[in-house]
């Protein structure tokens, strides 16, 4: 998938993207909003993804709250809320243990933005979901298990 992206950007997709940023185009080019961490998103395990993200030493923290359903009615969309109460949290990563690629999303919170995000992720099967908060050079982790069930009339 990264090759598709690289090609598109090389082929001029980037110009269209910058145009979309309108008056902020110059600023956008300066602030690399188009960064996409290929290596992290292509990692096949949570451990590998964390390594790429620089999170070698990770400790559990109750100050990082991960709110998920225990049972998901469908794996196509599973609501996930991650909220860090650790001062200075600038980044939260969401990962899914048993997805083909573990890293689902990385959020950057500039000064003034609450280190909290709610979104919906895809889950291939029953798995742990992991949130990792980056605070300065330290990393904190919260983990929850979600059961993805078979639905409806089968078939």
């Amino acid at each position: 998938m990264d090759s598709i992206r690289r090609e598109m950007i090389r082929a001029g997709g980037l110009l269209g993207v910058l145009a979309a940023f309108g008056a902020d185009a110059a600023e956008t080019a300066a602030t690399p909003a188009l960064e996409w961490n290929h290596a992290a998103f292509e990692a096949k395990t949570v451990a590998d993804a964390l390594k790429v993200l620089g999170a070698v030493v990770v400790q559990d923290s109750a100050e990082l709250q991960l709110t998920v359903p225990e049972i998901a009615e469908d794996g196509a969309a599973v609501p996930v809320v991650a909220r860090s109460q650790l001062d200075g949290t600038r980044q939260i990563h969401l990962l899914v243990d048993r997805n083909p690629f573990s890293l689902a999303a990385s959020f950057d919170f500039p000064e003034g933005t609450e280190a909290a995000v709610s979104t919906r992720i895809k889950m291939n099967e029953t798995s742990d979901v992991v949130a990792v908060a980056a605070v300065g050079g330290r990393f904190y982790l919260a983990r929850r298990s979600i059961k993805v069930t078979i639905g409806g009339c089968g078939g």
Partner: protein
Amino acid sequence: MHRLGLAWLLLAMLGSGARADDPFASYRELFGDDNPAELAVAKGQELWAAPRGPQGVSLAACDLGLGPGVVAGAYAALPRYFADAGAVMDLESRLLHCMVTIQGFSRDELAAHAFSERGASQTDLEILVAYVASQSRGAPVDVPQSVREERESYARGRRLFYRRSGPYDFACASCHSLDHRRIRLQELPNLTGEEGARSAFTHWPAYRISQGAVRTMQWRMADCVRQQRLPELVLGSQASVDLITYLGVLARGGAMDAPSLRR
């Protein structure tokens, strides 16, 4: 510690545990009201007003039962008898009728691509249904039984509901005639009574999470019938309209709340 908004607190509380009687309570609460069907509703509003088709006109002249161009509240009173077509029609039958007679679209082409395939964009019909249904939110279900044709449609629908056939011997009633039953983990509404009929009728069309798309009442009927192992229920056919009439009449008095969010 950050000061937290009420919404975040609520989300955290609701997510903390599922109710024993509904294993998906926390899943649904966490989903909240943010329904991707709203994306289709917004598109449908534009589509309704846009000049389209070989005739290059909008649907402003389309009468959904409350007069030409009147959308508000119309869905809550469908299916109903339309003298200009000489038939009882549900919303989808009526939209097809308008798109053919007013805008000049080909009925066969519309019917052949009525429901979106997986991974494809929503069809015009689905988008229009989402919009029209949204304009009945809160309105009480008022499916009429004023004329003979409407009463006959209900009677046929009721009979079909109990009619067993096919290799599995299934009728609608096989799964939908008891309270508090589930198929796998999904609750099955009891469609022989007011409560179950209301909960079903008032929530369709719905954004199906499992399919990532808005699905319509005609689709709901056809897909139940597919799973009964029967042949394909034809879009807008009399049997499809009869089943919807049966459900709608039982659901009278319930408050419309569609498009909803369903697994």
